[in-house]
């Protein structure tokens, strides 16, 4: 499947390009905001991995579900969460997506089917099968996508969720964003198989490996897995090979890997790749791309202004939102 390219409508390509670039520009700005201490806490950037979130989510309906990870900005944006609310959330403002209570690791918008970034590795998988179970019971046709990275392959929740999803034929897609590292530890030191797709066979589930730097390939594989789920034929494990360009978190010195490795991966950049394809196919011009970029940058700037101008939560708001009722 890896590398295969399918014709998709120009609109979809443009939309995917725009989403990927939006994630990239948003996070570049987050990096700056963090460095200048306007954004605090633990921040994990998705830069480099954009094709995975976008390839998947471009095949989802608005009411489909995703669960995410500590590295969740990309999934949020791909699922349609607004930049203003996100940036305000990172600032800790009351206009944030979560009123400032969540922060980077907990951005969520249940209305949009975004069931939350998550600070606990592997915790999103059970939530995703639960959303899928709910959809199946309600016969709503919704699909759930669980994003996680290679480190989560060895958390018990992966195993338990894969088994249950297969047993119950749940409409869920498990997406391993294999960026080769869990924090500073390379995959070969944490996962006992070379090819994680093998693990699908332990659950009698299809396992598909995809070039996670190629949004077209991801999108095609996603379309198939999602269709399968929606048909009622059960779950799929997609392993998307990708790379995070930045450190594990902002502040990581990255001594555990060579600069050259990162540089090499950047040659496969998912945004440049799609842009290249579209240019070759004549479906985008340099000018159109620049305009797109400029409008995204303006959107990001607007989000920063919004965040900056927004009020801080009042201290007594700390007590709200624990329970629905007392």
């Amino acid at each position, binding site marked *: 499947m890896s590398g295969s390219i399918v014709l998709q409508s120009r609109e979809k390509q443009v939309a995917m390009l725009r989403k990927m670039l939006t994630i990239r520009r948003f996070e570049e700005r987050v990096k700056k905001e963090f460095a200048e201490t306007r954004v605090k806490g633990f921040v994990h950037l998705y830069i480099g991995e954009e094709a995975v979130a976008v390839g998947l989510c471009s095949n989802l309906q608005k009411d489909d*579900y995703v669960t995410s990870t500590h590295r969740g900005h990309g999934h949020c944006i791909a699922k349609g969460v607004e930049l203003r609310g996100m940036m305000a959330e990172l600032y800790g403002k009351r206009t944030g997506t979560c009123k400032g209570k969540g922060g980077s690791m907990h951005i969520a918008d249940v209305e949009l089917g975004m069931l939350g970034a998550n*600070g606990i590795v592997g*915790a999103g998988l059970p939530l995703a099968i639960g959303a899928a179970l709910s959809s199946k019971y309600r016969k709503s046709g919704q699909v759930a996508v669980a994003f996680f990275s290679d480190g989560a392959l060895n958390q018990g*929740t992966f195993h338990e*969720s894969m*088994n*249950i999803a297969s047993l119950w034929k749940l409409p869920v897609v498990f997406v391993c964003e294999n960026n080769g590292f869990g924090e500073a530890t390379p995959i070969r030191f944490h996962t006992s198989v070379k090819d994680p797709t093998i693990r699908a066979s332990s659950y009698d589930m299809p396992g598909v490996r995809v070039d996670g730097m190629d949004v077209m390939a991801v999108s095609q594989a996603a379309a198939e897995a999602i269709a399968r789920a929606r048909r009622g034929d059960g779950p799929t494990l997609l392993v998307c090979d990708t790379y995070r360009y930045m450190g594990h978190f902002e502040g990581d010195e990255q001594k555990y890997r060579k600069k050259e490795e990162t540089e090499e991966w950047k040659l496969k950049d998912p945004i440049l790749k799609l842009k290249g394809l579209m240019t070759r196919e004549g479906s985008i011009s340099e000018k159109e791309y620049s305009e797109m970029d400029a409008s995204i940058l303006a959107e990001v700037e607007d989000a920063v202004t919004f965040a900056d101008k927004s009020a801080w939560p009042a201290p007594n708001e700390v007590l*709200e939102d*624990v*329970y629905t009722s007392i």
Partner: protein
Amino acid sequence: MQKTEATSKNLTFLQAITEGLAQEMERDKSIIVMGEDVRAWGGVFARFKGFRERFGDDRVIDTPISESGFLGAGVGAAATGLRPVVDLMFVDFFGVTGDQIINQAAKMKYMFGGKAKIPLVITTLIGGGVSAAAQHSQCLYSVFAHIPGIKCVVPSTPYDGKGLIVTALRQDDPVMFFEHKFLHSSVEGMVPSESYSIPFGVADIKREGSDVTIVGLARTVHQSLEAAAILEKEGISVEVVDPRTIVPIDEQAILNSVKKTGRLIVVDEDYPRCGMATDISALVAEKGFNYLDAPIRMVTSLNTPVPFSPVLEEAYLPSVERIVQAARATVSRR
């Protein structure tokens, strides 16, 4: 105090809870039940007996022994429109799924700025007295009361059990519903046939008295009532307060009672350190200090794992005798 009505019948603690659950399932199609062996057995202590036949396989779901997986699935389903009842057989097993309770279910609403509802009910067995040893006899509700975001119900009677499970199923926050396994069939009582709900955060005065307040939970409510009967013969009038829910907890009822009696004993089967006994004691030591005529006493399980041998377990658990002694000692300090 429990009301009996024209259309009441005598049920065990377990039967009453089962009935409350079943009636809600009839009413609300968004309720599903998940757990180990819920189909064949109706769960380990048959809490869901007959549910499969009555509600079908879609709503009564057998799970693998994957507590993180299926409890997390319950959280995910609750966040997306269902009202799952997930059975965590014994509370002792919470360690294999703690994260889904503590970091997910309990915190999601808050972390998401209020924009989520998690109407999830986790049923689970607690308590000793059946020689089930260290990994099947714990109470541990204090651990969940410690964690903000999850409500905790610890009923002691059939009437309360039914009314509180109904309430659990009619509100939108995650609830841990703790059932003391010793009470399941050993306690009976008249229970209205129709459905009714008992509000959370309202204590029940199980017995009125004037000399000393005893706060108990689950089985220790019954032990406290037995102790009260003994003490009555000695001229000591005991008030027994049953908070019934520990999150939220009815602080005022406890304070009012201590205001009246001037003396407090907290009886709790959970471990003594950082438990409900210390919680209620500290509440009164802060907000009811001026009412107190004597030190607050705590009668709890001993500070050890639960031993297997019946002889040792008896020494380990709170007992009527220890409650009586504590009451005598408290009252003697007049």
